[in-house]
């Protein structure tokens, strides 16, 4: 590597009660590089980046930085009711006397945006902007401080494919002008496409560090899991039986309004709903889950297991233990109670079984789920949805934001549910996931069915065109 590192971590160690999160890690970031930091959930990436940013103090080791370090969080930290320029300059507004100099502030934001090739309306209210543009605001806020090092935590988790491309165009430009960039991510395609170097962490240690040209997605994935990738469970031949039947479904309002929607999912098959986010998928999921009013027919036999889209808000009580969360959504069944009391012994047994079956990394089933990593939280949600062997499974982005190992495990469990005869509806924004799992694909566009494909007729290009709305 040419030149001196702008950020240098030496012998970093950080322990939390019960776990050593980072264990003797060295890391140098050089000007102009895009350095990807990858690893499974709980490998220590987030802790290491928090230490690099100065948010956490290491127990041992040193951090030395030349220049400012900026951090863009995975979850945006913006104030929706303020304008773009107000968010960008929050806390650093230029003053004239005791008043904010709005003219100078606006000019400064426009200048930073132009210098970095970002298009933005400085007067727009942040809450009215699409996710991709909101991220631009977040990025501008860091760029205004002219950072020597920019840390990006899962920057593309919420972005649509086109937004991801334009995001990386900006990042590559920034690096070309000498900023050192570190990206924490799960998306290995992005790593090999845009990064220059990659560091792989496992169990708090660095297990591999290499230039991108000298590695591959497979090699990185193997280093992350420390061996071969778990394969997704095999697709078994199943006896089809009646499952879900949807006819003339109308629900929701605005751009995500469902109209003339029809759908059949038979027991023993997985039907995938492909589509770009915001084409009515959430309305469909809510209608099927009985969370909103609808017109038309939804016929379904037997029990239902739901994997909601937003695990932290919709599926878990973050302050509760794994045991208590195991009961959520199942607490009103007759079997959940013994007399007047909830059967806590049974819930504990179930929690232990889920932990075992989904390989949840939790020292105890009594610890609050907020202490688990995102992937382990998701495994709990999936395990709970499947534990009662439901006849119908509704899975909405079941592997969003989790690492490859956890994702393969989740996909295997869904496939097994199908093999056991469940009707599975898989709504996903990852086309690859749908093509891997589904027996049939339905393309959803602006609240309606635009086309469908059987597994033998899967055509990635044709599906992609339909997702963009062109027949």
């Amino acid at each position: 590597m040419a030149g001196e590192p702008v950020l240098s971590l030496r012998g970093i160690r950080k322990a939390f009660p019960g776990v050593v999160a980072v264990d003797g890690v060295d890391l140098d970031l050089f000007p102009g590089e895009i350095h990807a930091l990858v690893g499974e959930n709980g490998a220590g990436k987030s802790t290491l980046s928090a230490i690099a940013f100065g948010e956490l103090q290491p127990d041992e080791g040193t951090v030395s930085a030349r220049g400012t370090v900026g951090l863009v969080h995975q979850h945006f930290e913006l104030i929706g009711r303020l304008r773009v320029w107000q968010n960008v300059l929050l806390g650093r507004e230029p003053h004239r006397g005791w008043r904010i100099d709005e003219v100078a502030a606006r000019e400064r934001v426009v200048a930073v945006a132009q210098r970095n090739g970002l298009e933005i309306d400085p007067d727009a209210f942040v809450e009215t902007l699409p996710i991709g543009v909101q991220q631009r605001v977040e990025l501008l806020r860091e760029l205004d401080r002219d950072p020597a090092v920019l840390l990006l935590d899962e920057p593309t988790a919420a972005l649509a494919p086109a937004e991801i491309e334009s995001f990386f165009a900006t990042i590559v430009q920034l690096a070309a002008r000498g900023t050192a960039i570190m990206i924490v991510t799960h998306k290995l395609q992005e790593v090999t496409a845009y990064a220059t170097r990659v560091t792989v962490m496992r169990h708090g240690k660095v297990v591999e560090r290499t230039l991108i040209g000298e590695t591959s997605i497979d090699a990185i994935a193997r280093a992350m899991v420390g061996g071969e990738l778990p394969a997704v469970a095999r697709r078994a031949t199943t006896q089809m039986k009646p499952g879900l039947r949807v006819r003339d479904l109308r629900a929701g309002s605005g751009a995500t309004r469902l109209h003339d929607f029809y759908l059949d999912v038979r027991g023993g098959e997985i039907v995938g709903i492909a589509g770009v986010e915001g084409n009515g998928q959430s309305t469909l999921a809510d209608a099927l889950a009985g969370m909103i009013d609808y017109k038309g027919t939804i016929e379904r036999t037997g029990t239902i297991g739901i994997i909601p889209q937003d695990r932290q808000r919709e599926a878990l009580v973050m302050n509760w233990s794994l045991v208590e969360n195991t009961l959520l959504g199942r607490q009103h069944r007759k079997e959940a109670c013994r007399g007047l009391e909830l059967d806590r012994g049974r819930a504990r047994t179930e929690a232990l079984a889920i932990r075992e079956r989904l390989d949840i990394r939790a020292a105890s089933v009594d610890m609050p789920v907020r202490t688990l990593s995102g992937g382990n939280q998701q495994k709990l949600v999936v395990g709970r949805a499947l534990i009662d062997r439901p006849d119908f499974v509704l899975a909405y982005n079941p592997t969003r934001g989790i690492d490859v190992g956890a994702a393969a495990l989740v996909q295997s469990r869904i496939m097994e549910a199908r093999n056991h005869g469940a009707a599975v509806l898989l709504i996903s924004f990852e086309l690859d996931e749908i093509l891997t799992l589904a027996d049939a694909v339905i393309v959803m566009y602006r609240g309606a069915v635009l086309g469908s494909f059987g597994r033998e007729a899967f055509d990635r290009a044709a599906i992609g065109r339909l997702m963009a709305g062109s027949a």
Partner: protein
Amino acid sequence: MTRATRMIAGPLGAVVLILVLMSLAMIAAGTSPVDGFTALFVGALGGRNQIGETLVATTALLFPALGICLAFRAGLFNIGAEGQLLIGGLCAGALGAVLTVPGPIGIVLMLIAGAIGGGAWGAIAGWMKARFGANEIIATLMLNFVAAYFALELVSGPLKGPLAAGAETAWLDPKYWLPTLLPATRLSIALLLAVALALVLQWTFSRTVFGYDLRASGEAPEAARRSGINLARLTWLALTLSGAIAGVGGATIVSGELHRFNTQLSPGYGFTAIAVALVGDLQPLWICIAAFGFGILESGGLAMQASAQVPKDAIHVIEGLIIFVLAARRYVATRVEGTLP
């Protein structure tokens, strides 16, 4: 945070802070804290009668605090316990004045009347929130005023006792008085009822489906809704039960202490009870201990005024500060937790 640090930052920290604040208030009033605290504790615990009075105040605080605790656990800020207490007392007093059944049955009927009255008062706020999305803080707060004037109006006219000099109901027949717990004091068995209720609530929260649903709704409303809980129904039910518990408290004051109803039933127990519930960390058993602590303040405050010249109002200033401190502590605690990975 670990359990131990949570306790220190929680109830124990609050108690230490309260003692420091009280010392400052005493110094400001020109008394040494040693004299002030001595007067306070002798006044509250220095003899049978003092202990009795302290426990009477404890009981009066405990019922509304438990009611508030139930609503808070469901994520509902019921600050209308004062009004619910008053209406509960009014219903019990009005019924007790006309009863002609045997004593124990009459007492039970009065307690039920108190629960129905307080529960109805809570239900109004619950209905407004569940049906129209009204803010329960405003609704319950405003209903306190409605309750106070409504009760005053009734006991000034239609429900006024035939021989009563002021605005109050007729005196209860002594057979409808709650039995005394500590002889030669005003302490009735209402204390035992309150503690039993705390045990039942603790069990309900930790063991039953209803308690599970209640806590889920308070902790994570969206996850609760998706788990099959009817949030509107739960809101309504929680505020009704919360009011009913406060209402029973009002009935025990009428039957165990005043032996008639008038609007001097509560010197603000329903408001102090908010602090009691929070100091007790919304855990029914801790709330019992917190209620005893506040009972000491309530009954010892008068003695402190007499012998150490610290105005009794200083106690109320301190109670106000406690709520303030607790709110700040919760904010600090979430900030601290937020920075942990």
